């Protein structure tokens, strides 16, 4: 028994542990998700995070030693944001034809999400730095962290809000769109996907890509658009209000 404890202490302190645990739990969660017919509640990110976080808390492994390994996956978020140009490029003709209405929808959705979060947070009496971390929540996590830092929020908290937002979108999108009677023809799928990418970034987009090809492409497009709009407009809006 003491040998096992020694081994665990050694393993849990090496980067190998965080990386292996993340990939192992995620691939298991993906398999379960597929077996369950891709039900929204079986979202693989949600369950991977729940299993890993509770596992770390129970075993007493501190987050930094987990992150020492998980950072190799985290690092890929940067190149992934660059790679978002690819779905934009693939849809460049549609983008040229519809850029006006897509831009309006992206702006309206982004303002609705950030504005309502800021107002609700303030009305519910959340601390100012929590409120400011809520503002960039519809943008993909690494960008949200950067924006939160610029406007006076807490980057780590902003990342957590971004992940939560993505999960809420991925979990509830289908039901909301069905309730709003958005059709499931190609135009309807495009609108569904675009909304998921706008309001719940990469996690919503990942869900859209799994469900329908049109939805996935428009989700990727919306995600890229939201990243550009939010990182330009949110800091600008705050600079104007503070001046």
């Amino acid at each position, binding site marked *: 028994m003491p040998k096992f404890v020694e081994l665990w202490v050694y393993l849990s302190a090496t980067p190998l542990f965080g990386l292996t645990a993340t990939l192992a739990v995620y691939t298991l969660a993906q398999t379960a998700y597929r077996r369950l017919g891709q039900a929204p509640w079986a979202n693989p990110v949600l369950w991977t995070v729940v299993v890993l976080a509770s596992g770390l808390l129970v075993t007493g492994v501190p987050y930094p030693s987990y992150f020492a390994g998980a950072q190799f996956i985290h690092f890929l978020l940067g190149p*992934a944001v660059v790679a978002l140009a690819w779905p934009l490029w693939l849809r460049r003709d549609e983008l040229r034809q519809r850029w006006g209405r897509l831009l309006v929808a992206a702006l309206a959705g982004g303002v609705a999400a950030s504005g309502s979060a800021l107002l609700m947070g303030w009305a*519910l009496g*959340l601390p100012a730095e929590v409120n400011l971390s809520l503002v960039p929540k519809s943008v993909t996590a690494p960008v949200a962290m950067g924006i939160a830092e610029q406007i006076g929020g807490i980057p*780590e908290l902003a990342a957590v*809000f971004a992940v939560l*937002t993505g999960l809420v979108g991925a979990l509830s999108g289908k039901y909301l769109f069905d309730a*709003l009677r958005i059709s499931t023809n190609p135009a309807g799928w495009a609108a569904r996907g675009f909304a998921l990418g*706008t309001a719940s970034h*990469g996690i919503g987009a990942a*869900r859209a890509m799994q469900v329908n090809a049109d939805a996935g492409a428009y989700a990727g497009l919306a995600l890229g658009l939201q990243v550009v709009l939010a990182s330009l407009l949110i800091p600008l809006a705050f600079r104007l209000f503070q001046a």
Partner: protein
Amino acid sequence: MQALRGLTWLLVLQSLGELIARGLSLPLPGPVIGMLLLLVALRWTPVRESVALCADFLLSHLSLLFVPVGVGVMTHLSLVSQYGLRMLAVVFVSTLLGLGVTVLSLHLLRDRRETDEPHKDAPHA
């Protein structure tokens, strides 16, 4: 080899983006500038062929990349236990609003402009 070349392109463009963002103190994050640079560079066939493979792989596993940050919730347990329900309510309602407003504005705009001529003036590369 192509996929590896693609990853190299992504990293080169991200680094260029970081340099430009810092050098000119732009409000855009480095990877976002990298994305805009890639949008221009994709006109070039060698870049397109190598980036395609790598981008498809990265983007199809996009949700995995959020796991390490997501697990970070455990470091904010005190904030979560104090304000958790309220924070969750804010995230939930604002996300539904964002989704609803986006999908409805696309829906409304489409109905009104369905017969319009496509716009010819494209603002980007």
